[in-house]
């Protein structure tokens, strides 16, 4: 009863407007009982980091399909670190070549979900991680 709801920020960084995935994830996490905030389109890393602080979220989910992940992710991780948000779990979903995954994880991304991932797998991951 008193258990705090997991708070998630779903963010769509960069110039890309393909938000089908972001909206599906936002809704699936909400249906799984989480508190979800969706940033809307075209967010810079600065905007996402500020929103994460203001909303005091446990998880940030980035939806990136445009190939800009190698630029965006390290920038965001640096900003989160500067703002003292070292506990936040950052997830990436989208089109990420497998060769880029190790470096992204190195930068602090907790997990990368590729196309075809079921929404339940993401819900389960978050529950396990943010226990």
């Amino acid at each position, binding site marked *: 009863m008193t258990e705090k709801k997991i708070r998630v920020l779903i963010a769509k960084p960069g*110039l890309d407007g393909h938000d089908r995935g972001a*909206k599906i994830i936002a809704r699936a996490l909400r249906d799984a009982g989480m508190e979800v905030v969706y940033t809307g389109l075209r967010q810079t890393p600065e905007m996402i980091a500020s929103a994460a602080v203001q909303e005091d979220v446990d998880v940030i989910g980035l939806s990136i399909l445009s190939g800009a992940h190698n630029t965006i992710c390290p920038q965001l991780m640096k900003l989160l670190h500067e703002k003292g948000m070292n506990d936040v779990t950052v997830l990436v979903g989208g089109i990420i070549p497998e060769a880029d995954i190790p470096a992204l994880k190195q930068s602090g991304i907790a997990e990368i979900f590729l196309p*075809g991932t*079921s929404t339940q797998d993401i819900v389960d991951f978050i529950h396990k991680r943010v226990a």
Partner: protein
Amino acid sequence: MSEQRKGSTQTVPPSEASSAHREASAKEQAWEKNTLQPTLEKNPERQSEFTAISGHPIRRLYTKADLPNWDPDRDLGFPGEPPYTRGIHSTMHRSRLWTMRQFAGFGTAEDTNQRFRYLLAQGQTGLSTAFDLPTLMGYDSDHALSEGEVGKCGVAISSLADMEVLFDKIPLANVTTSMTINSPAAVIWAMYLAVAEKQGADWKKISGTLQNDILKEYIAQKEYIYPPEPSMRLVIDTFEFGVKNTPKFNTISISGYHIREAGSTAIQELAFTLRDGLEYVEWGMRRGLDVDQFVPQLSFFFNAHNDFFEEIAKYRAARRIWHKAMVERYKSKNPRAWALRFHTQTAGCSLTAQQPYNNVVRTAIQALAAVLGGTQSLHTNSLDEAWALPTEFAATIALRTQQIIAHETGVTNTVDPLGGSYFVETLTKEVERGAWEYIDRIDAMGGMVTAIERSYPQREIAEASYRYQVAVDKKKKIIVGVNDFVAEEKPLDILHIDETVAHRQAARLKKLRAASTPCARAPRAKTTSCLSFTTP
């Protein structure tokens, strides 16, 4: 989340139900009793309900009972004649195959020019340009918001100089070019026409297609810059320019492709696209343009998804709806305005990152549906596109897929081979009816711009998209290699675009700015190459 919350309380979507009044013949009833029932008792069917990928219910068997008031002369007609169910040309692909138009664009203008020339050398018959996100959003390659995006999803074009390189050694007088550009369409088109002029091509004779469909940007793809009303004014400006200066150019490609990719059903794709089309016609008329003059320059663009027959029904219904609207709603007298011409692209969203070679098969079947549905032009996706932009190897197989359909399968030998099929004709009617229900609903709201401002199509699509995801997660819809028939596999060799593209672009822009006469003082853009998006 407000968008989704509103979504869950909306009214029920127009019925996607099967034909209501069905009276089976005595012979059909006897078949049910004597043959079907004993079979079902022994072997129940695999599922209690069969549905198309959109959820549209599909009957076990279609007979003439499904087409009670169907009149072949009225509903089917003949190819090249109203209502164009069977196609817009009397001979269709017997005279002229569809244009094989592979969408391409990555890196710098040099990279893409090279790919264009390669594709033409492989037998491709038209060009289609993919621009990168900064270009789509009207930013120069060295703008802060372009960081990480230059040349990634398409070619980076910041200036007329880039455009000249893009079409270097490609004769624009002969090759038709499609350009997927929307918010900054007028600017990119101006650059294109300047390059054509410089090559010596006659604007009155050149042909090609500008996507220029801003309405679907709000509905689906979301690469918009300005609000709907002023954006519509820009679109109508290009119509007006096109009527006067480039009579053979398609000034718009009214696109259902992106609506479908955003998760809509086939009926939603059809309905929202055609209602967008009607909106453009009405805005054009309000500008004082003559329907019979500007409408023949409007073209369409549809998706080809996995559900084979539903897709074919969609294309056939599209032609019927457009004809009816042009004649009855706008009193058009010009048959060229009645005939809906369309490009098709196989469904990017149907491709899987898992077992990517399976995508060749998916694409082939989707392309076949587009051909049987009477497409004028076709793009087939490459097997690696769930991972990245295609390698030359993958793009070649995609082109070869079209060539195999065209030259080996025999499907081009006759016009509308599925015409008269009980199933296809019934489905065409049902899809058409479902689309009209949506169109009527949007009319009642006051038109598409108002509907968009109220997020109506956006919500309908988000609902359908979520319904489909839930069906996939619950394995009610199977995706081979994703939620069933899963296997271990090796990673694919994919195209990698690094940041050197951005550096090269930035250096070129810097040089261009230093050398250029300010545009305002330049006598003609073509002589200065100074046309650039965002002034520094």
